[in-house]
């Protein structure tokens, strides 16, 4: 069971290749390889080489095969490539297939033990590391040996492709938060393998790293951490959650950054509750939003399913709260540790009846941070839940990014009346009702509990209500209310983050996407341009879709909607919202559980256009 052989591979040419190739590291889950892989990625980052790392891991604590791909790109391309030139084959169970997936001229770094069982190829380079022998020579106590064994490939890679040893030590030290003893123990193994490789292996491949200045002033971080940091700067104050992959590290991030908000006596301005399930997590954030808190939960598909009823209530009762959906592959339990963009429609329409939810669609690390804080303002301005639809790829992998911009506007609490402004409202309008739309934008004025005014109270309910929030089963009240909610969604279109549009000089071809496919699309578009095929580009960043999406569709003869799900969900939404003249809008939908590659986009587009 290996990652499927990737077709469409571009063959390497045996010319010297510097800072422009990819690794795949195949290990067993739970063997400690995550640290080794992080050390490699962070070392390349420190060398100034644009890099990314993508963890393609199983739903398992220990034993199942796991892969980690590392791509270095001097040109700054950070999408996952379909093909990796180098494999570190440290899992005997997948080694044969891992080697079979290499292109001619590729490199296999493996252990002497595994080398004996792999079906050999004569068109690649093999480097065998005597792991067991090296480990016997280390000073590592036997109890820790299994955990640090993977450091042997770090040492071999460092020697073979020129990563400085002292740099690796610094990265190890940072990785272990300054604990010298642990860093030294790991580095000891790295050095042993480094030295052994220098003495015993003759390099026969063209790949090497070289310091450059491609990462100066940039950061590396996961999208979950970026979103969490954004939430902390966005004034989150009530967090409720239930652990679920791949969203768990989002709340871990908030816990980690919570100190930025503590006062001098270390008291918290953020309450964080691990709920008994996602039903309760949703209830807590809805209750908090109702009472004037800035509340957030983070979950994934199965959790979002459980939150559907509260989402509908919050939509209808008009209660702000922020929900992050770090999307993983469904339906059902699906592929819990694989990425997907398959929850787009479900999240947008979450809740029974005619509900429609605001969705923000971050496409990169900076947007994860930006939407992290902005989601609260949008939610309170619109008095409705906001769903930030991220995915496992952005959430759990390390991404290279420019540093984040500090919020460019003050915190907004939306139309909230305190005792004084409530009195002014009553003086002006004769009365106040929770759902009275006096501004004509579909957004009414609300009060929060604790407001000391005799007319501040109202009764919140998911049942039919009139503009005074009084129970009503009258059809006219119902229709008026739903019409106002629709107006509010239309108001939202122009308040939400607008699409990113790039004119690539094409008269014919438009590409539409959302979320994390951007890097792969950018690279594929460059390849297409080299082939003489120009494309224009639009990345939607929020639902409901902005009106500029319609203009973009109308302006092109062919529109391809690239999305990482099986059914072409954004395409369906476009057809729903833009029913006239959409025969030229076609989905390029993949949904195979992996981050999208430029190779697949390039091939698919060529095939469609050809």
């Amino acid at each position, binding site marked *: 069971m290996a990652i499927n052989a990737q077709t469409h591979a571009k063959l390497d040419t045996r010319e010297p290749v510097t800072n422009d190739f990819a690794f795949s590291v195949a290990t067993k889950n739970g063997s400690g390889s995550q640290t080794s892989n992080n050390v490699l990625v962070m070392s390349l980052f420190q060398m100034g080489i644009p890099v990314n790392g993508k963890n393609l891991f199983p739903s398992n604590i220990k034993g199942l095969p796991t892969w980690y791909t590392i791509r270095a790109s001097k040109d700054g391309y950070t999408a996952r490539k379909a093909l990796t030139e180098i494999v570190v084959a440290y899992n005997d169970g997948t080694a044969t297939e891992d080697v079979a997936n290499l292109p001619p001229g590729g490199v296999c770094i493996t252990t002497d033990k595994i080398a004996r069982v792999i079906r050999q190829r004569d068109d690649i380079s093999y480097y065998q590391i005597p792991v067991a022998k090296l480990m016997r020579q280390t000073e590592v106590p036997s109890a820790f040996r299994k955990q640090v064994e993977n450091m042997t490939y770090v040492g071999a890679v460092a020697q073979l492709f020129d990563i400085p040893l002292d740099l690796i030590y610094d990265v190890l030290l940072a990785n272990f938060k300054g604990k010298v003893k642990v860093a030294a123990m790991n580095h000891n193994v790295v050095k042993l393998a480094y030295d052994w490789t220098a003495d015993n292996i003759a390099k026969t491949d063209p790949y090497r790293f070289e310091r450059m200045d491609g990462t100066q002033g940039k950061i590396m971080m996961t999208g979950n951490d970026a979103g969490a940091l954004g939430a902390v700067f966005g004034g989150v104050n009530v967090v409720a959650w239930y652990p679920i992959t791949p969203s768990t590290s989002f709340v871990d991030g908030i816990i980690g950054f919570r100190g930025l908000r503590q006062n001098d006596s270390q008291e918290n301005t953020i309450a964080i509750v691990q709920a008994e399930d996602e039903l309760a997590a949703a209830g807590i954030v809805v209750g908090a939003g109702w009472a004037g*808190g800035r509340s957030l939960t983070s979950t994934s598909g199965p959790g979002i399913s459980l939150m559907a009823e509260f989402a509908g209530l919050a939509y209808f009762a008009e209660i702000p709260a922020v929900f992050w959906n770090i999307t993983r592959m469904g339906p059902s339990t699906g592929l819990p540790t694989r990425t997907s963009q398959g929850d787009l429609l479900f999240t947008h329409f979450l809740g029974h009846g005619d509900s429609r939810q605001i969705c923000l669609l971050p496409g990169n690390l900076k947007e994860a941070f930006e939407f992290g804080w902005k989601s609260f303002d949008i939610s309170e301005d619109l008095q409705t839940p906001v769903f930030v639809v991220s995915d496992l790829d952005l959430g759990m992998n390390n991404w290279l990014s420019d540093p984040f911009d500090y919020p460019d506007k003050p915190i907004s609490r939306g139309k909230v009346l305190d005792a004084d402004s409530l009195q002014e409202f009553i003086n002006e309008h004769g009365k106040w009702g929770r759902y009275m739309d006096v501004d004509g934008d579909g957004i009414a004025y609300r009060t929060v*509990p604790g407001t000391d005014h005799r007319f501040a109270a109202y009764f919140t309910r998911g049942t039919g209500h009139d503009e005074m929030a009084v129970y009503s089963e009258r059809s006219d009240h119902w229709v008026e209310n739903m019409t106002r909610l629709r107006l509010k969604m239309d108001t939202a279109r122009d308040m939400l983050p607008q699409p990113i549009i790039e004119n690539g000089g094409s008269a014919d071809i438009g590409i539409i996407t959302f979320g994390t496919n951007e890097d792969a699309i950018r690279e594929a578009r460059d390849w297409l341009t080299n082939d003489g095929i120009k494309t224009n580009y639009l990345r939607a960043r929020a639902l409901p879709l902005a009106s500029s999406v319609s203009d973009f569709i109308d302006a092109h003869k062919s529109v391809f909607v690239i999305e990482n799900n099986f059914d072409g969900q954004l395409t369906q939404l476009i057809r729903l919202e833009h029913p006239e003249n959409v025969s030229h809008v076609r989905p390029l939908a993949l949904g195979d559980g992996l981050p999208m590659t430029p190779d697949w986009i390039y091939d698919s587009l060529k095939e469609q256009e050809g």
Partner: protein
Amino acid sequence: MPPRTNHLGLARNEYKGRPSTLCPGCGHDSISNQLISMAYELGLEQHKIIKMSGIGCSSKTPAYFLGGSHGFNALHGRMPSVATGALLANKELSCIAVSGDGDTGSIGMGQFKHVIRRNVPFVYIIENNGVYGLTKGQFSATADEGQFLKYYGTNHMPPIDLALEAVIAGCTFVARSFSGDAKQVQALLRAAVRHPGTSVLDIISPCVTFNNAATSTKSYPYGKDHEIPLHEIQILAPDYVEERDEITIEDYDEGDIIDVEMHDGSFIRLKKLDNDHDPRNRRMAMEVLERSMREQIFSTGLLYYEEPRPTLADTEELVDTPLALLNETELRPPKEALDSVMQSLMVG
């Protein structure tokens, strides 16, 4: 003559809500009335109270009392989580929550247990009638084994005792009462609103439409004939010391009085009746409840009380200011803080 007013200068009428839409004679309406009286008599400020509920007949009632308080009729069985969120956002609010046996005893069982476990400080009233009213007469999980109802015939399942479940979950204030016993309900409510922890009041509140036959243990006739109060209850405010001494000396032997001192210095005075129940004894509370369930004895009163452990807001070590009232500076770290995080992630 002007109407009598409380110390806030408010008449009792001003604590009412909208007119009830429940069946005439419903036990739930008497509980709403006791809530109105309690808030009026104690002179509670309505804007500092929130009313929460789930779904069902009982959960409609917050619309019928304390019209000056914000209310939230949430989802079936999930009032506890919504109350938790609201009280985390603003820990200065008091919360009166109303649920039913269908709401708490079935879908709500998990949230019921967990809200108690977290010790969210609020009054959790279960208006318990053993039957689903809005869907027209199905058994609820608290219906007695062997009971007969027109809709479904005989119930063959043992009941869930929600007061017992509360004690087991670690609740520090557990009481059972009967909506027909206005005096006791009133006394228990007065104690419960003072308790800085989850207070569970399981109040048998007959459904006059679907479950009021004399054979049903959740009916008026049964309750009136069979209710056995564990004590006579009196709530003494902190400044009632002298009167307390007087009563002790005049009316009772010392051994017959249990004074439970509450967190705010007030006392729950329990005058013993025909039993030795001491609500400060957890084992005794569980024994009383188990025997009551086994022998279908309708024991009412304060079943269990203990000095409250830290509330959820305490455990969370929150700042003094309610989170909902934090200002921009408290909610958003300065630019330097972001720059410093960014710097730490850059090439060193």
